[in-house]
C-alpha cells in the first residue's frame, strides 16, 4: 500500500499547498525528538506507517500516518501501554 510507484492513477495532482497546522508541526517535532532520544528510529517509523491497514492508509492525511506510526511503535516497545493514549483523550 505504501509502495506506490506506478500505481494506476487518474487523479490529477492537486497542487494546492497548506500551511502546516500546529498539531502537524507538533507531530513532526515529536517524531524528530523521539529519534534523537533513541526511542524510535526512522526505519521503525516507516515500518509503523506501512503497518497501517490498507483502507486507512489511503484515507488518512500525511501527519495522521506519522502519529499512527509513533503510537504503534511506542506501544510495541512498551513505552506506551495499549490504549493509554485513548484513555488520556477520554
Amino acid at each position, binding site marked *: 500500500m505504501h*509502495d506506490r*510507484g*506506478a500505481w494506476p492513477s487518474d487523479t490529477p495532482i492537486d497542487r494546492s499547498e497548506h500551511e502546516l497546522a500546529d498539531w502537524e508541526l507538533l507531530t513532526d517535532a515529536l517524531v524528530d525528538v523521539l529519534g534523537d532520544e533513541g526511542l524510535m*528510529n526512522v*526505519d*521503525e517509523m*516507516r*515500518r509503523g506507517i*506501512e503497518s497501517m491497514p490498507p483502507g486507512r492508509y489511503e484515507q488518512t492525511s500525511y501527519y495522521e500516518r506519522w502519529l499512527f506510526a509513533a503510537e504503534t511503535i511506542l506501544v510495541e*516497545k512498551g513505552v506506551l501501554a495499549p490504549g493509554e493514549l485513548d484513555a488520556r483523550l477520554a
Partner: protein
Amino acid sequence: MTFGAGDRVRVSDRAHEGHHRTPSYVKGKRGRVERVFGRFTNPETRAYGADGLPEQVLYHVSFAQDELWPSVRRNGSDTACVDIFEHWLEAE
C-alpha cells in the same frame, strides 16, 4: 563491494515480508550500476529494533523506462534511478 559503476545487474524478484526499501516496480528488472554509495545500515533489520549492522553496500542503479513498463508518453532514452542495497542485486 560486489559491483562497480557500469555493471549490469538484475534486481531480485522475491517476496519479502516486512519492511524493505526495494520498490516492487524494479523487482526482476535489469539495470545498470551508475554509482556505488558505500555502506549504510540495513533498514530491513533496523526497522525492527536491531542496529542495522552489518552495514550493506548501497548502489545507484539506473533502469531504462522501456525495461520497466510500457508507459503513456516517454522517450526511448528515459530512465528511472533507484538506490538499491547489494543483497537485492544479482549480476546480469
